């Protein structure tokens, strides 16, 4: 069937079972590390592809204006959260609030063409992120409980 594009991810249930058998604190730490390492790929890609240039900060009358080069590149944030009651976590990756103009780059304006960097990073690296998540989970499980990830 040439029209069919299929992505199959296996091993999720096995990973869940392996984590569920561990003490909750250890399992959460493993999830946190996996999310951080995996989503770090997206952050790296965003840093590489975001449009860079000098940003002029207004400042006060005393300090005057100041310039900062590639502010957005250096302010791509990442926030990992793991839910307390379940083996479930999330990781938000993107420009920090202070770099609010990232939205104009990402989506454009009526007088400015979009220079997207978040959505392309997400789409181009989604497979690498999934692979990194699995790889890190195996490593961490092996570290905590040798031989358990086989």
């Amino acid at each position: 069937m040439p029209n069919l594009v299929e992505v199959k991810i296996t091993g999720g249930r096995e990973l869940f079972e392996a984590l569920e058998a561990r003490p909750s604190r250890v399992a959460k730490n493993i999830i946190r590390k996996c999310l951080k390492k995996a989503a770090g790929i997206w952050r790296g890609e965003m840093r590489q592809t975001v449009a860079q240039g000098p940003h002029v900060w207004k400042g006060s009358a005393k300090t005057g204006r100041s310039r900062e080069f590639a502010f957005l590149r250096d302010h791509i944030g990442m926030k990992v959260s793991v839910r307390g009651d379940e083996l479930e976590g999330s990781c938000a990756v993107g420009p920090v609030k202070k770099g609010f103009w990232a939205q104009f780059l990402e989506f454009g304006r009526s007088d400015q063409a979009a220079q997207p960097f978040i959505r392309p990073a997400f789409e181009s690296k989604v497979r690498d992120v999934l692979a990194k998540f699995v790889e890190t989970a195996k490593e961490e499980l092996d570290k905590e409980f040798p031989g358990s990830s086989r």
Partner: protein
Amino acid sequence: MSLHVGFVQLISADDAFQAAAGDPNTRIDKTNGIFPATMPQNCDLPALVYARVSGREFDTLDGRGELKQTRVQFSAFGEHHAEAEAAAVAAKNAFVGFSGTLPEGTEVDSVILVLDRDNCEQVPRLYEVSFDVEILYRNAAV
């Protein structure tokens, strides 16, 4: 010919889109109201702007495959929210879910809506209704 030529022809020929945004005969700027990347200065509103966000090709065992995937952002701008919304909805209804051959010959397998958002610009005060679609397609044979 390329994909964007095809979807611009498809959307601009749609009755609902023409009712919302006008056509070259009714618009002062004599365009169909659809522009690539950014709107020209002082153009009539509402207007629809499209831009490619990302894209990829699928390799086969024989090498480069014909199937391609691209993500396109459409943004409808208007002086009022209802105006922008009407143009965006008309474009969405004309294109999302489309499957078949576009007027210029590109074969489209699927068009899926993947993002929908509203925005407002303060200066000049403009409303924006934008949406992203993911398109699976094969270029027209040359």
